[in-house]
């Protein structure tokens, strides 16, 4: 395996009953790159990513992560490898504040009866927000008091707060107002600066072209092509997606 890749998915097949969702798909993700992923509805994007995050098991195929073959049986294994996912609908708990959301499932605890170290988590949350330049004045606000862009930023912060190696962003701008999309795209580029490899799934070609290094096109469960951003344009991508 070529070590310029952090992740390789080889010959991935997945069927649901008689429906072939993925057919012999190969995907390579380089260290520190943003790979845009596009395709029409039911092209297989979500299925491929769910295999990578352990929500589904592939019927056939192999996954290599950092040059080692891995078997991702559930989302926990995926997280242990350093693969995190950011969802379209933020996936935050609206009733919890920013630190509680950032650390949900991975809270910092003390010894003995393991009490939560709330102060430490608050302080680390402020650091994470500052490091990613996420503009939230009061981290003690509950998630439902934040704007859509702030919520998505917190969701991204949550994904990257445990030093992941790969972040999958599934339509991260789909639920946002125009003003907030730019901020999330800037944040995505900042993650790249921190050396994180990103798979950026989106229907919005403008967003894909703004952040991606390469663009991966899926159609009806088949990999159609992978294009360098600098050597293609929107018309060609649309043509590959639909014809």
């Amino acid at each position: 395996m070529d070590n310029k890749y952090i992740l390789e998915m080889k010959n991935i097949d997945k069927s649901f009953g008689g429906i072939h969702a993925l057919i012999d798909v190969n995907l390579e993700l380089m260290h520190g790159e943003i790979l845009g992923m596009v395709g029409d509805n039911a092209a297989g994007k979500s299925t491929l990513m769910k295999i990578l995050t352990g929500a589904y098991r592939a019927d056939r195929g192999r996954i290599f992560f950092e040059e080692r073959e891995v078997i991702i049986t559930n989302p926990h294994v995926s997280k242990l490898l350093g693969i995190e996912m950011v969802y379209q609908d933020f996936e935050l708990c609206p009733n919890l504040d920013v630190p509680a959301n950032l650390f949900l499932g991975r809270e910092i605890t003390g010894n003995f009866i393991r009490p939560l170290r709330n102060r430490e988590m608050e302080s680390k949350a402020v650091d994470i927000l500052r490091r990613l330049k996420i503009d939230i004045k009061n981290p003690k606000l509950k998630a439902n008091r934040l704007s859509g862009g702030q919520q998505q930023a917190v969701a991204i912060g949550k994904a990257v707060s445990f030093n992941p190696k790969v972040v999958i962003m599934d339509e991260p701008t789909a639920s946002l107002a125009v003003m907030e999309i730019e901020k999330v795209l800037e944040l995505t580029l900042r993650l790249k600066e921190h050396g994180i490899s990103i798979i950026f799934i989106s229907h919005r070609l403008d967003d894909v072209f703004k952040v991606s290094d390469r663009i991966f096109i899926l159609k009806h469960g088949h990999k159609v092509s992978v294009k360098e951003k600098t050597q293609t344009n929107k018309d060609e991508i649309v043509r590959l997606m639909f014809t």
Partner: protein
Amino acid sequence: MEEYKQELPITEQREAIVKTNFLKSLLNYLKGLMMRSEVGISIAVILLFIVFSITSPSFLTAYNIFNVARNVSLYVFIAIAQALVIVGGGMNLSVGAIGGLAVVATGYFIDTLGFPPVIAVIIALIVGLIAGAFNGAIITKIGLNSFVVTLSTLFVFTGIVYGITKGYPYINIPKAFTIIGRKGIFGLPYVFWLMVGALGFIFYVFNFSRFGRWLLGTGGSKEATRVSGVNVNRIILFSHILSGLFAAIAGVLWVSRMGSAQPEIGQDWLIISFAVAIIGGTALGGGSISVLGLFIGGVIIVLIRNGLIMLGVSIYFEQTYLGFIILLAVAVDRLRAFYYQKAGF
């Protein structure tokens, strides 16, 4: 006009800004305070105290205060049993039936089998844990709605209670067993101090334990909590086990207070559990709980019941009053949430 404008010296300008900021912060703080459910119900409690103190001379007597404190404590235990499940986005309609099982277990093992009370209490608490685990296991393993499951087990457990007792109470309960339910210290009943301990435990759980944080998360968004790596089903299961335990504790304390184990104990707990929990600020949709609110909610319900009796209002309509109070509490909660959103808090 400009030439007449008199500018303040820099220091005075600074002081003015500080004063304005302070006033703004104070106003925002007061607004935020009024948004808290505990504040509204605390005002209601104070008003009720004033009204009942004026209208009934026996209201502020030591005996009545002791009695009110004891009832509040028992209601709070029942409300904790309900709130623990509501906070995770579910409900437990079998709270009273589980309490009834614990009552019968206590009576049966003390009266019929002659077990020492300590052993009988331990068995009763285990019965509560098992009943809660049964609810939780069906909800999480089969994937049924908590309403349907606990409605069914309400009848299952009540049937067991009447099947075992044939409707007769266990009356041979040792006098020593009633000390906790009838006596007190520092002018307040022992059960009151037990309640303080229980509320302290709940405060710890929801502020300093992973389980509490995950249960709050589950109530806020089950999916978000699940994708964060939390085993949501295990959390729901555990919340039902704890709910069963608290219902059983309430049952045992009720036996201690009554001095007998009567099978009908628990039958009116359903409405009490919801009334105290919801009035106390536990969101019906899940995701929030207030320890102070649970206590104040208990005080409100007991004061209303107590006051109605003192005012000579027909007690036969009691459930109607409680039902209306719950409706009022839910409506106020909705209005508060609406205002909260509008005010941009």
